[in-house]
């Protein structure tokens, strides 16, 4: 009786140990397999990487729906976790179909149906390597600007004057509030290795932080939080206050938006 009881308990403990070991190995395997990839560029409307990894069932229907063969299920050697849809702009960029067939084909919602307008897609953010961009060297390339489907908003060409004896540069600038990350610029860039590349915004975007106040941009005066102590009730003859200047000295330059 006692012996069989002990045997049962030992068996149970062994079973639990095997389950625990198996579970740990499995969890470790999962951590490797399903590790969110910062390098992967996802189809338009893709959820944030962690949610995408959990929601995408890896069926490849988006891949099949894409008329340009842009999307691929990641292979073992790719930057994205195996089996998940991604694209490599320098091979084939996303041509931003207005009917977003990849997203329509997605059965799970990993490509969110909330994306109605392809121009609102944020697959990535184009980043320029000014050291290899031809325009930044002084040539009139501007290819990225011309191929950009949201040109004038996602990429603008800015005039950049130099010293007197040199002609001005006409350089591309990317604006994150309009760039969809489609990668047409990266695909078209004529340099040997693309000087403009689409990357996961999380990889390249900084954040100013709320403790910096760009006073010249805000509508309220920079002193908005400063309240002078209540003046004690006046005793004796009333004194007329000297009128204080509206802005601090030296602020004018900033307020007028003049870059010194």
């Amino acid at each position, binding site marked *: 009786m006692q012996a069989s009881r002990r045997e049962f308990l030992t068996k149970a403990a062994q079973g639990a140990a095997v389950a625990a070991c198996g579970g740990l190995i499995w969890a470790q395997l999962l951590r490797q397999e399903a590790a969110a990839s910062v390098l992967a560029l996802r189809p338009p409307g893709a959820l944030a990487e962690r949610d995408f990894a959990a929601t995408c069932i890896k069926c*490849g229907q988006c891949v099949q729906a894409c008329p340009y063969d842009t999307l691929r299920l990641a292979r073992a050697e790719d930057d994205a976790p195996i089996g998940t849809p991604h694209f490599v702009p320098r091979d084939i960029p996303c041509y931003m179909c207005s009917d977003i067939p990849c997203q329509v084909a*997605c*059965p799970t919602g990993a490509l969110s149906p909330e994306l109605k307008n392809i121009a609102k897609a944020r697959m990535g953010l184009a980043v320029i390597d000014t050291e290899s961009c031809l325009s930044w060297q002084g040539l009139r390339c501007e290819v990225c600007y011309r191929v950009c489907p949201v040109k004038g908003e996602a990429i603008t060409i800015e005039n950049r004057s130099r010293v007197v004896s040199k002609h001005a540069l006409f350089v591309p600038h990317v604006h994150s509030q309009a760039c969809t990350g489609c990668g047409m610029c990266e695909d078209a860039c004529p340099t040997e290795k693309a000087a403009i590349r689409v990357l996961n915004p999380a990889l390249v975007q900084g954040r100013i932080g709320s403790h910096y106040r760009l006073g010249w941009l805000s509508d309220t005066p920079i002193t908005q939080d400063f309240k002078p102590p209540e003046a004690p009730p006046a005793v004796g003859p009333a004194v007329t206050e000297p009128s204080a200047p509206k802005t601090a000295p030296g602020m004018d330059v900033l307020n007028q938006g003049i870059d010194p």
Partner: protein
Amino acid sequence: MSAIPLSTRRAARLYTPPATLAGKLHDAGYLILRRITQVGVLLLFFGTLHWGWQVMGQPVLRGNLSASELLGVIPLADPFAVLQQLASGHALQATVLLGAAILLVFYALAGRVFCSWVCPMNMVTDLAGWLRGKFDLNNLFRLQRGTRYWVMGMALVLSALMGVAAFEWVSPISMLHREIIFGVGMGLSAALGIFIFDLLILKHGWCGHLCPLGAFYGLLGNAALLRVRFDDSSCTHCGECVRVCPEPQVLNFKKAAESGMVTAGACTNCARCVPICPEDSLDFALRWDAHPSPGASQPRTPNSTVRNTP
């Protein structure tokens, strides 16, 4: 109701393979059909993706075994994968839920037919099982067949803990069909791993002991309408069916006689047992066409030693 006296039960005789080609083909009929559906499903996916197969302007079968769309309208999805995704705490779109529901109902009616009629891994494990029979290899260790239900439970628990579909992400089955259809890699190594495991380490090791997807369909299969019917009055307990069954524990003569059919959900409806039975005591039938045999309540001992290989 009167019991069938033991003395009237005919003496057991074993299966003799037919001499003619027609007879051989007849006996291999279900096997051939299963290979046709297994390869056919993959071919439909492959043809739709690579050769643009269409019917009435609609892609025939888009996607893969995880989720797909049939003829441009009917969504289908692997219910166990979807269950894991839900366990991971993520809301899913109605399309995939509907697709999972459709297959859930289908497999609840048809039994564990996914395993023997659809799953590409079945061809791998069948080959390993067949070779094992040729070489008469020993198991390296023993494992309870119930282990798979624990693996299945753990898949759901880990999905909840890790926030991603735990089995789907490491599933050798998904790797294999994704490899075959989309060519993403790793699938062949996954299949090779399972093959070696089944061949050299444990008989029916993967499908019969570990696969959580098979376990899931096995649980569903308990409700199945499509059954292997058992005729107790002609059965001689020769045990040929048990010898060829990949899930031999489901062929329990006593239980089968009581209900007139194989009731266990783990039965994959592969029909290996049907043509091999020398007495034609087994065939496919719907649940309500199977009737308990008159002598079922009477306990009996088998005539011959049943080679039950767990």
